[in-house]
């Protein structure tokens, strides 16, 4: 990065206001085009055949009957997507997941696909494909997968990160460790130690729009793809590599995206659609059904976490130790590693150790879900911290404040922190009126903290000045929730012009340079940085043009309030030139005016949040309702506060669903039992209260406007906040998420039984 991106403490005119978003009208009138809304002339309908078995070897696939069916234009199997990955393990896993090769590893794994003239014919054709499976023993549960004697998914999987290398293969693909100090010495200093095991079940990102794309490969080897994605450049890269195409010959156009939350960072059906189109020589549209989305696109990990924390009577944490087992589906990931890194990140600890184990199971390939892996680890840690506070008779907020990580603290994952904001969120929580509001019958209040890294990445933007002085801004990060409005605000701010004068669009892969995925809360953070730099680039050209128009030296021109102004004794009386005037003169002062920027937006800065939650539990049924909820989080600088609030609320709602209801349920046969919204129940409107938000603004020193990523952290605290609230209401400690009604009822019954036993023995 050559440009100076440090925060300078400037004040704002546009940034921080709440104008209407530019894509709003299209979205309320039904005009916005999402993945499934794109049609191409002559397109076929693609459909995928999926394994009904959780684990099997593929002996043979016979497609001849399907091929013979009238209206079928192409049938493909792994043979049509040959392995071009050249030893790149990560890419091979993506390929194998898109189309199974020698084995199927989960219920829903793709084994073949067809393209036909219509959906009915495609469905018929799928039924005519005969797959000869040799069924193998399977394992879906995280603890069972690591138990001795469990069926091993990959005979060549020897745990990485263990010295010496294990002699036997297992389902533990990788071990990672973080921490510092001497945990045994730390525990020796503790007055109270709590040790518990927690479990969390697998959840899905649950975006309402299923994966959809239209692929078209022409006989000359070039291709086009319209797709709902969080990263069209990354999709282009993966698809081109898997299909053996030149990257620049594949043009990927992102459609509007109906939610992603991490789940649309990965290719699932796109390489298949392209391969079908290549074989059929026609465009192919492929839209997943909801059932396929659940069975075959990426859920988060199921986990089992052992945790041990010690504390002195005075409330100083002396040591923490955690072992985290995270499922990653049939392919190794870094999910447990992320859990291990984030688990104790909120606290200042002298002695800490975390061990992450990546566990292979016969479930779909795990994919990122908003602050991936952090919510489960936070559930375990924040539950124990709360319990410790109770044991030493200290207020749980005070205990956290006492041990909060601050500038100079060595983080549990390694480095020493720069200026960070867990303290302010805790302090705000302590002072928040929610904290002291009265509670009703059967209600309890809980709070919890959360941490997430955030990052930036490769980014570029184009800012073009139209002949009338209006501005079109082209960005390469996907707008998942109002980013176009925020980026227009940033461009307007920097240029000193009204928001209305700027229009933001998301460019396709052929109109803009490479951009990383919109993940890691990076969309607004990094594209705003590139937008500021593009605008500054354009301003320097505008000043040159103004100098030419006035015929004065460019050093005598400044840019202020959207105008070029001449300064100095000699020229100070010249009337300012507006953006429109300079733009109009552009043909004769050097041609079109534009600003560009390409950068790596590093230094995103870590993010913290504190949540407060009140629940009401029905002691008869165990049904738990969140009755009040408050999110407190640092945004650095909220560009468009309404959409920052929206991110906080949305993340909290997803966390609430995870905490109370959502889970993948597998039968003994290894099949997913609840692949639909009826049985996989995400929160509905009547399940939730209003979600209050408090935005803190502690400027990020590594962004010119002080902006921080805000998208992810808000899903981290809810699991623990709700667990703690239930515990405070009834004195039961919930250790298994989701805390569904039956689980809460069982815990209540158990507590009651224990209490009556106590009475009898007394």
């Amino acid at each position, binding site marked *: 990065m050559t440009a100076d991106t440090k925060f300078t403490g400037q004040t704002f005119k546009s940034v921080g206001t709440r104008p209407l978003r530019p894509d709003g009208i299209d979205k309320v009138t039904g005009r916005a085009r999402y993945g499934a809304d794109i049609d191409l002339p002559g397109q076929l309908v693609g459909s995928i055949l999926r394994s009904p078995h959780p684990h099997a070897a593929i002996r043979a696939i016979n497609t001849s009957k399907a091929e013979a069916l009238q209206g079928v234009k192409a049938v493909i199997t792994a043979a049509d997507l040959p392995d071009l990955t050249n030893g790149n393990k990560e890419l091979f896993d993506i390929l194998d997941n898109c189309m199974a090769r020698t084995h199927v590893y989960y219920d829903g794994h793709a084994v073949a696909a067809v393209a036909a003239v219509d959906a009915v014919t495609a469905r018929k054709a799928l039924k005519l494909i005969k797959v000869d499976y040799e069924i193998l023993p399977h394992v879906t549960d995280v603890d069972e997968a690591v138990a001795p004697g469990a069926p091993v998914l990959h005979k060549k999987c020897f745990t990485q990160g263990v010295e010496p290398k294990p002699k036997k293969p297992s389902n533990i693909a990788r071990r990672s460790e973080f921490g510092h100090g001497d945990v045994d010495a730390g525990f020796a200093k503790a007055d109270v130690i709590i040790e518990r095991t927690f479990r969390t079940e697998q959840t899905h990102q649950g975006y309402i729009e299923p994966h959809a794309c239209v692929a078209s490969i022409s006989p000359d080897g070039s291709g086009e793809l319209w797709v709902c994605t969080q990263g069209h450049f990354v999709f282009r890269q993966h698809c081109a590599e898997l299909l053996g195409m030149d990257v620049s010959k594949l043009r990927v156009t992102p459609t509007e995206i109906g939610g992603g939350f991490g789940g649309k960072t990965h290719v699932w059906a796109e390489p298949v659609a392209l391969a079908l189109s290549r074989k059929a020589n026609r465009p192919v549209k492929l839209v997943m059904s909801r059932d396929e989305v659940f069975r075959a696109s990426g859920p988060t990990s199921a986990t089992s976490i052992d945790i041990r924390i010690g504390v002195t009577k005075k409330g100083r944490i002396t040591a923490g130790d955690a072992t985290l087992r995270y499922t990653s589906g049939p392919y190794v990931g870094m999910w447990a590693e992320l859990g291990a890194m984030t688990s104790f990140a909120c606290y200042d600890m002298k002695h800490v150790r975390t061990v992450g184990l990546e566990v292979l199971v016969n479930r779909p390939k795990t994919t990122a879900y908003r602050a991936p892996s952090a919510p489960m680890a936070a559930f375990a840690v924040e539950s124990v911290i709360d319990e410790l506070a109770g044991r030493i008779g200290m207020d749980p907020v005070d205990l956290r404040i006492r041990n909060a990580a601050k500038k100079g603290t060595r983080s549990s994952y390694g480095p020493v922190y720069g200026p960070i904001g867990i303290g302010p969120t805790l302090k705000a929580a302590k002072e928040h009126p929610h904290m002291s509001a009265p509670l009703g019958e059967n209600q309890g209040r809980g709070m919890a903290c959360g941490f997430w890294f955030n990052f930036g990445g490769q980014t570029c933007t184009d800012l073009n000045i139209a002949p009338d002085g209006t501005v079109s801004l082209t960005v390469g990060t996907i707008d998942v929730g109002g980013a176009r409005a925020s980026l227009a605000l940033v461009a307007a701010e920097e240029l000193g012009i009204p928001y209305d004068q700027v229009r933001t669009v998301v460019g396709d892969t052929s109109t803009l340079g490479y951009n990383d995925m919109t993940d890691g809360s990076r969309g607004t953070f990094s594209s705003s940085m590139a937008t500021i730099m593009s605008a500054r680039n354009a301003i320097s050209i505008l000043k040159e043009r103004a100098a030419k128009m006035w015929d004065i030296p460019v050093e005598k021109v400044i840019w202020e309030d959207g105008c070029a102004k001449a300064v100095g004794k000699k020229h100070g009386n010249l009337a300012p030139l507006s953006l429109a005037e300079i733009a109009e003169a552009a043909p004769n002062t050097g041609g079109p005016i534009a600003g560009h920027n390409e950068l790596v937006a590093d230094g995103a800065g870590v993010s913290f949040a504190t949540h407060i939650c009140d629940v009401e539990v029905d002691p008869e049924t165990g049904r738990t309702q969140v009755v009040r909820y408050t999110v407190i989080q640092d945004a650095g600088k909220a560009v468009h506060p309404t959409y920052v609030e929206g991110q906080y609320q949305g993340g909290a709602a997803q966390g609430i669903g995870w905490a109370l209801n959502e889970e993948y349920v597998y039968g003994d046969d290894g099949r997913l039992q609840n692949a639909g919204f009826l049985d996989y129940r995400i929160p509905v409107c009547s399940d939730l209260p*209003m979600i209050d938000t408090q935005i803190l603004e502690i400027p990020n020193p590594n962004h010119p406007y002080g902006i921080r990523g805000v998208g992810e952290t808000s899903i981290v605290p809810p699991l623990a906040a709700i667990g703690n609230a239930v515990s405070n209401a009834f004195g039961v400690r919930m250790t298994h998420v989701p805390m569904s009604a039956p689980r809460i009822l069982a815990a209540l019954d158990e507590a009651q039984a224990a209490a009556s036993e106590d009475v009898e023995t007394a």
Partner: protein
Amino acid sequence: MTNLVNTNINGDAVGFACEADETLLDALRNRVGLKGVKEGCGTGDCGACSVILDGTLVCSCLVLGMEVEGRTVETVEGLSNGAELHTLQSKFIEHAALQCGICTPGFLMAAKALLKNNPDPSEEEIRYALAGNLCRCTGYDKIVRAVQATAAELREA
């Protein structure tokens, strides 16, 4: 077998061909070209495909195309009056009641059906009336507020 269906959609007489087992959702999207009607599940669980059929809110994925013969269908495309947005539409934008927007057409139709029957709903009534529509982005807070604001404005008008 393909059938011809004559119906009224958003005030216009419309005829479309459709298979006997084709859903109204598919017919509206693929035969009539009304792609504002969204599919989130195809099983009646998400509400993204909500339309108003003879004044009643329905999931168009649970209705057959042939069933709308001679009836009236309202979709999101018919909500605005030319360039003039329906109050619900402008309030949804003002209140940021949408992030990704895929659920928005369904919510607008559900809210319209609610306000027609109940011009002054309580927060709880709004929440229950919209409970058949899933939104994964917003946590519903701003959606409820947009509906409240619409109801207030329509009552004044």
